[in-house]
């Protein structure tokens, strides 16, 4: 009888503890409750429940702690300072998979906020616990552990190095082969975060055979998985040429190009990022992409993306065109210049406009044919506006100036240079006038056009000190025309003519002048 009463008392206590923990876990799912929970000192209450006898209480307490920590950095800091982490971590190898999952969730929630918190997690021995969890069979535990590792590695290269030193990378690569989609996603994301920091880390990842696993998953229909795979591949390819070649040799092209036309924004952006990282290393890789027809895909993708989604595509075009004039002509043939002009018109953000301006500069700087393509798209006034407008950022102005300088020095298409002559500031004007001085001595048609369109007048009005390049260009241009025309168009010529008119007396009397003057001087007969 007494035993039953005692049993009942203990039973009740267990039940009430379980109920409390479950309620707290439910409440912690809602952001508006967080403040009140924190005021009620929930951390110190949950701390002893982590070592509870009843495993369900332990697991739910861990879950509640994780939810609290993931809400804000402050709560995570409180969790760390309450010294909960070492106890949590020490229990992990011993406990069952539900506890492990909750513990990984707590570690993830703490590590995701900042570098210091992640470092605290590592110092408490969290990485070993996470690696133990990664060796588990339950896919949920693996997912949770991989997620936590990804968040730890994301912040800085040192943290990523410690993750690699703990031996997590082979296990993560094994996770990718798991049949569960969630585990694959999270493992891909974690590897992507490790690779993005430095080359050595990427080598470790690649040596474990990550690339072939990624390549096998490129054509999977799952959206989130594809995003992570593409981001991981681009992070691998971006460091050196050898890594980019490894990525290419995994035969991801031409399957990857279908990602550029996907409905999802992030897949398109990550695919463009991957292509950009591959293209920027050498002309051969860029030629590979061009030969496979990638330029058209990128141009189409630019047409239907905007804002930060379009940025990697613009940079990919720029990097391709920068290598050689053959590749730049391929970009032009694929209607890249037209699309970049549209981007420049429609985008509001200065970063993307700067990137578009830079890419146009890379395309146009090779030969007069390329510069003509840029000129025909009516881009010079737009570039000038980017350079001179007060709204443009410093970066955009600088890029616009460089682009104008490099493209103008190659441009011999006269109709496009005429509007620039009227509106350009002096440092751009000298390139425009220089181009005229190169073309006009050889082309009579252009000379005629130059005079009739009023450009000669404008050139005469330019003030230039003798000895500067601008003065020499102007002299060269003036030498192409007869002196009378140059004088006629020089400023102040009409005043000069009028002055001459005032001092001029016409001689139409033919010698009867003296008589007439005498008659005028002699007193008139009538009045006298």
């Amino acid at each position, binding site marked *: 009888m007494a035993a039953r009463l005692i049993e009942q008392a203990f039973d009740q206590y267990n039940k009430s503890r379980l109920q409390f923990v479950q309620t707290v876990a439910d409440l912690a799912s809602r952001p508006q409750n967080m403040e009140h929970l924190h005021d009620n000192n929930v951390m110190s209450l949950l701390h002893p429940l982590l070592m509870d006898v*009843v495993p369900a209480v332990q697991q739910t307490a861990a879950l509640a702690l994780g939810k609290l920590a993931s809400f804000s950095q402050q709560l995570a800091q409180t969790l760390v300072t309450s010294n909960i982490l070492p106890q949590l971590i020490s229990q992990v190898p011993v406990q069952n998979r539900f506890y492990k999952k909750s513990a990984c969730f707590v570690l993830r929630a703490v590590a995701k906020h900042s570098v210091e918190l992640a470092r605290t997690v590592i110092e408490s021995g969290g990485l070993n616990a996470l690696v133990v969890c990664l060796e588990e069979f339950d896919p949920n535990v693996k997912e949770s552990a991989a997620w936590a590792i990804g968040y730890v590695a994301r912040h800085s290269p040192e943290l990523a190095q410690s993750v690699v030193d703990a031996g997590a990378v082979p296990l993560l690569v094994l996770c990718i082969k798991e049949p569960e989609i969630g585990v694959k996603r999270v493992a891909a994301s974690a590897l992507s975060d490790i690779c993005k920091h430095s080359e050595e880390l990427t080598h470790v990842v690649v040596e474990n055979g990550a690339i072939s696993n990624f390549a096998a998953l490129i*054509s999977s229909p799952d959206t989130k998985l594809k995003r992570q795979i593409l981001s991981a591949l681009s992070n691998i390819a971006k460091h050196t040429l050898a890594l980019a070649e490894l990525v290419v040799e995994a035969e991801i092209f031409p399957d990857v190009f279908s990602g550029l036309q996907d409905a999802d924004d992030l897949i398109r952006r990550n695919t463009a990022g991957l292509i950009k990282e591959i293209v920027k290393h050498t002309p051969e890789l860029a030629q590979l992409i061009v*030969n496979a027809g990638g330029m058209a895909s990128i141009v189409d993708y630019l047409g239907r993306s905007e804002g930060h989604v379009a940025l990697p595509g613009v940079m990919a075009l720029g990097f391709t065109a920068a290598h050689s004039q053959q590749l730049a002509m391929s970009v032009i043939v694929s209607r890249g210049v037209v699309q970049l002009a549209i981007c420049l018109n429609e985008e509001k953000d200065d970063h993307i406009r700067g990137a578009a301006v830079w890419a146009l500069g890379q395309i146009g700087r090779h030969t007069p044919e390329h510069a003509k393509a840029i000129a025909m798209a009516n881009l010079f006034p737009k570039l000038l506006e980017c350079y001179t407008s007060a709204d443009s950022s410093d970066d955009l102005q600088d890029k616009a100036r460089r682009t104008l300088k490099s493209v103008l020095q190659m441009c011999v298409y006269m109709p496009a240079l005429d509007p620039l002559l009227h509106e350009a500031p002096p440092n751009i004007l000298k390139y425009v006038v220089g181009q005229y001085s190169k073309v006009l001595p050889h082309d009579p048609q252009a000379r005629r056009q130059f005079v009739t369109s009023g450009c000669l007048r404008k050139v005469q009005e330019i003030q230039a000190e003798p000895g500067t390049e601008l003065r020499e260009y102007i002299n060269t241009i003036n030498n192409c025309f007869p002196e009378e025309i140059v004088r006629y168009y020089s400023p102040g010529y009409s005043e000069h003519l009028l002055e001459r008119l005032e001092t001029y007396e016409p001689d139409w009397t033919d010698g009867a002048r003296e008589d007439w003057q005498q008659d005028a001087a002699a007193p008139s007969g009538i009045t006298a």
Partner: protein
Amino acid sequence: MTTYQRLVVQLDTFPELVVLRHHEADTDRAREYRAAVRLQSWVRGYRIRDRLRRLHQLAAVIQRHWRGYLGRRYYRRLLQETVLRAQADYYRRQATLIQKTWRGFRSRLFVFNFAEWKGYLNFVADQNDELRVQCALECRRLSEERKTVCSSEILQQKTLIKTHHMISTKTIPGVYNSPYHRERIGIEKHLASIRFPVRPTKKAKTKPEDKVEDDKSASGASKLQGPFLPRLELRRRLSRRPCQSLRTAEPFENTEAAVRDQRRLAKVHCVSEQPFRPPTAHLLPPLLSSVHAAVPYRAPPPFRETDSSRFVGSGDFRRVLRPVETFDGCV
């Protein structure tokens, strides 16, 4: 006598006759003189003209012959010069032909080949179009695959929801429950992870009515008894996914037993720690996959290879200098 008589008779008239005759001579002297002058001048003129004409004729003969000689000499020289010029022009034309052909060939080989350039650009355009088509197909395939996956998931969820009551509990182990496995496998696992959907259509229909009713209650027209939750909040709580996995999976009395089971299962599932490789792995050649070979660009072959009838010599064509592979840094 007669003469004397005639003369004596005339004697009276003789001085008058003499005077008359002198007068006649005088009166006509000027006239005759002028006549004589005229005749003489005419004759002189005639003679001189004749002489001059003769001189002119002779001069003309000389000049004619001289000019003929000059002309023939000139013609001969002209002829020679024309022939020489024609020959020089012919050789010049032949030399131009050789130089033209050689320069064209050399610049196309070593400097810039416009036909190849145009061919390359057309190739890029063709590849672009081809890839566009392929990508469109691929995208369509992916979206269809996503749709089928999605629809199969939806179908699975629907069937599971219809049989959600077959889940096994502690007191009543269900039909799909296997007594040999402590944890859920197969259909049991899916039954445990059912997500009950919030019914969107009903919500959409009653949303304006809800709002109207709430407004009514707020304005105090018909006050409900007791502290009830608002409708939407209540519905959200009822349709929330219950977290069952932690509570129903494990009996909370046996920690050690659960840990023991876990360890036993781990030992059972783990067969070997070596990663699997086929036994003949060491015999396989290393896989050389090159995308370079997948999409080659090859220039069209020169006529030597396609049309051998135009080939002049007997041996094969040998280049003295090596051609440059790309056409960068030129034009």
